[in-house]
């Protein structure tokens, strides 16, 4: 697409156009096949497989409405064929790159005459790519360390101080602020919990700890560790400190309440 290439050239000079990460598997052919077979078994055993994949007429109704299909070598129809294929390598190969083109808008799901949940089955493939620590997924998620840190500790996806000119030059000069100006502008929002810069809103310590507990119990911490173990180690340290702080405050508050009574 001319528009896309030339805009990037205008922004980045001669730098290579950012592309989706191509399969970076370093395993031997035998190891790759074993991993592919294991992922295939997990895929077919997932409770959502039977609910989401119902057969396909190859009508292409899903693809005609798909935004990603207009710009990428991607089609939801093909993804459904991948989900139906009995060849583990077909699934494995699609999981290296193609699955990440999907926008998760659910247009295909609404249009499918067969009742397939195509956006949903792509999510299952993505979860397995993370859970199994695919090299291509590690590469793809590298720019997300800061986002994952924010999500796992506050439940916020992005914070105002993450919108920096270096990362968002294409959003224009008024989309980003200097740090000093940012604090002032946040203070001018008429909602107290929004007057912070390091989170979209101030999240109480108890809430953050409960969220992390959910992530631990539901296996999300292990999932993230499969793609970024250092990040998980760092988050666990932060959470341990917060737990101590929380316990201390709780004790102090309870004794004050007792005294007042």
């Amino acid at each position: 697409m001319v528009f896309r290439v030339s805009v990037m050239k205008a922004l980045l000079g001669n730098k290579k156009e950012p592309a989706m990460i191509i399969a970076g598997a370093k395993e031997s052919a035998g190891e790759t096949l074993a991993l592919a077979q294991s992922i295939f078994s997990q895929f077919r055993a997932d409770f959502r497989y039977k609910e989401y994949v119902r057969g396909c007429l190859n009508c292409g109704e899903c693809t005609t409405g798909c935004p990603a299909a207009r710009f990428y070598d991607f089609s939801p129809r093909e993804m459904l064929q991948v989900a139906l294929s009995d060849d583990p390598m077909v699934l494995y190969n699609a999981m290296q790159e193609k699955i990440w083109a999907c926008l998760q808008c659910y247009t295909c799901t609404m249009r499918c005459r067969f009742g397939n949940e195509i956006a949903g089955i792509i999510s299952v493939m993505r979860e397995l790519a993370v859970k199994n620590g695919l090299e291509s997924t590690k590469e793809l998620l590298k720019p997300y360390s800061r986002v994952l840190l924010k999500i796992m500790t506050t439940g916020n996806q992005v914070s105002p101080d993450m919108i920096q000119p270096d990362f968002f030059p294409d959003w224009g000069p008024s989309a980003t602020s200097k740090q000093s100006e940012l604090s002032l502008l946040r203070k001018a929002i008429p909602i107290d919990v929004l007057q912070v810069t390091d989170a979209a809103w101030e999240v109480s310590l108890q809430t953050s700890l409960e969220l992390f507990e959910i992530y631990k119990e539901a296996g999300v911490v292990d999932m993230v560790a499969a793609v970024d173990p250092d990040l998980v180690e760092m988050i666990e340290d932060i959470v341990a400190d917060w737990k101590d702080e929380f316990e201390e405050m709780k004790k102090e508050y309870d004794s004050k309440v007792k005294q007042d009574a």
Partner: protein
Amino acid sequence: MLNADQIRSVLEERAKNRSVSDKKVADVREEMWTLHDKGELTVIPITSKNSPLEVETLFGWKKKIPTDYLWHHKSCGQCGNIPGYPASLLWFMNQFGTHYLNEPHQTSCTAWNYHGTATSNPVALAAVAVRNWYRAYETGTFPLIHCGTSYGDYKEMRKLLIENREVREKVREIMKKLGKDLVIPEEIVHYSEWVHVMRERIAAMVRYPLANIVATVHEPCHYYKMVPEDAIYDPRVYGGQRPAPPTSVLLALGAQVSDYSTWYDCCGFGFRHILTEREFTRSFATLRKIRPMVEEAHSDVLITTDTGCVTTFDKSQWVGKVHGMDYSLPVLAEVQLAALAAGAHPYKIVQIHWHSTPVEKLLQKMDINHEQYRKEFTEYLNQLRNGAKPELLHAPRLEIEKYFAVNKGNVISEETK
């Protein structure tokens, strides 16, 4: 164009078939109440205290929209980038004397992250939802979901928790560890549904008429393509073939709503694309949405009802100048436009200075003296710089709430209103 009788017959047929494309759809609310009666879960009911109003959804099913005693389930993208979005909503609620709770004891739904990186799973998503719902439950309020994706996700999670015993058991176990019960709201309610049912009261407040304004609508995908049966439809809006809000609100406000060929397309947000593949997002948003809105519909303003869509359309336009596509089409949520029309301060309340695509030319067309307002805001910033206390829409949180909640069962008190 169908006449009224034909529209009625199409809608009756749809209600009878209960299907999206060819999929038969069951009303999970029936099973939800059965599980409630069995003690499997607790439904957070909508009571008369919530002053509900009734609307119809895709198949003509009734849905109760609570209008009072609400728990604001904030959106991370709105609060982070478009703070005038929630501020406009709270401003209206203050005008109407609505009781609400807006507090730090909430996480986001985490679904932006899930749809972008897949670093979560159904049990975690459902548990996050229940944790937030429980907080509304224990404070005697009803959750009002600000974000379209949170709304879509919570509809899915409600369905999952009702239909999948295994997930339900796991979530119940996690909630037990957190000292909470498994609760599910009687309805999953998006803020735009509150605005929709309040539209006549909002229209009565209009100070700057919108008769001159041509608006184009982008319907957020996660509002009506995820669990479509929960979205509000009205035969008076596009013959019941498209969701009613926010078109219904614009019509009530007296704006001209103009149609365009790609109304069904998504915005191009893509969850991960908006962060790390923006060459796609901005191309799609500009070529498939902004351009037709301007060239086909001659739009003065793009109106939508979701975080990601406002962000995408607003932030993607500046770079279009590289290709001579300087559309500069102002992008607002319907509640922001309504607040401007009702006389809310464009900078202090609607916070238009956070928008990348300037909104001032729209204000000019609405006869709003934005220069005067800008001057007032600059003075206000100077006062804040010199240590003045910020003006707030509601009382600030208690100091201890930085750490934990202390107001269980204590719905927002009178002195904070």
